[in-house]
C-alpha cells in the first residue's frame, strides 16, 4: 500500500504544482490518477516514485517514508518498483530479450540460465511471440514495445507498479490489451498499481480506485462505478466531455 499525505510540490519556488494532496493506493488494486492535461498528475506520479523531491508531506511505501530516505535507501526501495513509461523507454541498444533480462542481470542472485528463463517467462506472460525476442525495440510495434516494457517491469517481481499514460499512442484494441494485462498482473502478483491516465476507456475498464486531480489539488476520489453518480462538477466536465459518455451517464441515472 502507498499512502500520500499532504504532499506539496513546487518548482524553483514558484506556485505549488501539487497542493496538499492526500490519497491511499491499495495493494492488489488498479489505482488511477486522472485529470486534464497540466493538472499535475505526472508530477504527482514522479513525486511518488521519487523522481521529484516534494516540498513537504509524506509518501509512505508500506510505512516507509520516501522523502526521509537517503539516496542509497531510495535505490534499494526502487528494486521493489516496476514502471511502464509513456513511450515504453526500452533500451535502444538491446534486443527485446536483453531489455527484460537487464534488471535481472543487475540485481538477481540467480545464475544466468535461470535469469534467461525468468525473462522468457515474463515475455510469454505478456503474450509476446518467441520470434520477436531477438528483435530490436525499433523493429516492433508500439503495442509490442509496451508489452515488453511491462515484462521488464515485472521481471524482478515488484511490489509496486507504476504506469504513466500506458495507452498513449495506441489504437483502442491494443489499449484494451494493455489495460487488461495491467489489471491481470496487478491481481496475480498482488501489486500496488498506480496508473496515470486521462483515457476514459481505461478508467472505466480497469480503474478500481480513482483519484481525480485538477489544478494540482485533489478534487474527488472513488471507484469507477461511483464516477457515474458523483456530485462533482469538475469531474463531470472532465469525464463526460464527450457526447458518448454523456449518454452513458444519462442511461445509468435513468
Amino acid at each position, binding site marked *: 500500500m502507498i499512502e500520500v499525505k499532504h504532499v506539496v510540490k513546487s518548482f524553483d519556488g514558484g506556485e505549488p504544482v501539487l497542493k496538499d494532496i492526500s490519497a491511499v493506493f491499495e495493494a492488489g488494486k488498479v489505482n488511477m490518477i486522472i485529470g486534464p492535461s497540466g493538472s499535475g498528475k505526472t508530477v504527482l506520479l514522479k513525486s511518488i516514485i521519487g523522481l521529484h523531491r516534494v516540498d513537504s508531506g509524506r509518501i509512505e511505501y508500506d510505512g516507509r517514508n520516501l522523502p526521509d530516505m537517503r539516496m542509497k535507501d531510495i535505490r534499494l526501495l526502487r528494486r521493489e*518498483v516496476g514502471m511502464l513509461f509513456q*513511450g515504453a523507454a526500452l533500451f535502444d541498444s538491446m534486443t527485446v530479450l536483453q531489455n527484460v533480462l537487464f*534488471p535481472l542481470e*543487475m540485481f538477481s542472485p540467480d545464475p544466468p540460465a535461470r535469469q534467461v528463463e525468468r525473462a522468457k517467462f515474463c515475455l510469454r506472460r505478456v503474450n509476446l511471440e518467441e520470434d520477436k525476442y531477438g528483435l530490436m525495440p525499433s523493429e516492433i510495434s508500439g503495442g509490442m514495445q509496451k508489452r515488453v516494457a511491462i515484462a521488464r517491469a515485472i521481471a524482478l517481481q515488484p511490489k509496486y507498479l507504476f504506469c504513466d499514460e500506458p495507452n498513449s499512442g495506441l489504437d483502442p484494441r491494443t489499449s484494451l490489451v494493455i489495460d487488461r494485462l495491467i489489471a491481470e498482473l496487478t491481481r496475480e502478483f498482488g501489486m500496488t498499481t498506480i496508473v496515470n491516465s486521462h483515457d476514459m476507456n481505461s478508467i472505466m475498464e480497469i480503474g478500481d480506485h480513482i483519484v481525480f486531480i485538477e489544478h494540482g489539488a485533489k478534487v474527488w476520489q472513488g471507484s469507477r462505478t461511483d464516477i457515474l453518480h458523483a456530485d462533482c462538477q469538475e469531474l463531470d466536465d472532465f469525464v463526460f466531455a464527450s457526447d458518448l459518455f454523456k449518454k452513458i451517464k444519462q442511461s445509468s441515472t435513468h
Partner: protein
Amino acid sequence: MLASFILDSIRTTGRYALLMRKVFARPERGRMFFRQFVQEVGKLGLQSLPIVIIISVFIGAIMTIQTKLNTENPILPAYTTGLVTRDTLLLEFSSTIMCLILAGKVGSNIASEIGTMRITEQIDALEIMGINSASYLILPRIAAFVLMMPLLVVYSMAIGLFGGYCVGVFSDIITVSDYLLGIQYAFIPYYIFYSVVKSLVFAFIIASVASFYGYYVKGGALDVGRASTSAVVNSSVLILFFNLVITNLMLN
C-alpha cells in the same frame, strides 16, 4: 551581463562536479560494468582508428612538404625537415590537434547518445530500477576513452611520421635518408611522455564534458543537437586551456 555569465559558469561547474561525484561510485555489478567498458573501448577507441589513420598520414605528409619548402636554406642541415616534422607531431599535432578532432567525433557521439536516452526516458527507467544511471552510463565511457586515447595518440605519431616518409619515397621533395636522419636526430623520449599525459587529461575532458551535456538535456531532438554542439565547443575550449597549463608545467 558579465555577472550573469560568471554566475552561470559557477553553477555549471558545480553541477559538473556533483555529476562526477555520482559517476565515480562503485558499479552495482562489476560484470555489467566490464561488459559496458569493453563495448565502449570498441566504439570510442577502435572505431576512431580509421579517422586517426587518415588524418595523421595526410598531415604528416603535408607537414613534411611545407617544412621542406619553408626551410629551403643552405645554412640549415638537410635533416631539419624530418626533425621539425617529428617534434611538431609529437608535441602538438598527435596529442592536442588529434584530441580536438576526436572531441568532435567522440564528444558529439557521447552527448547525443546519452541525451537521446534522457529525452526518451531511458535514464529515468534506469533510475527507477534502482541503478545509479550516471555511474552506469558515464563511468565506462570515461574509463574506456582514457585508456584508448594514449594508444590513439601514439598510433597517430607513428602514422604521421610514416606519412612524411611516404613523401620521401613517392616524390623528390626530400630524400628518404635525410628524412630518416631527421626523425632520429636529437630525439627526446620525454616528449612522448608529455604527449601521453596531455592525452589522458584531454580524454577525461572530452568524455566527461560530453556526458555532462548529454545527461542534463531537457526537451526534444533539437535540444540533443544543441547539447552535442555545446559539448564539442566547451570541451575544445577546455582542451586548449589545459594544453597551455600542462605545457607550462611540463615543458617550461
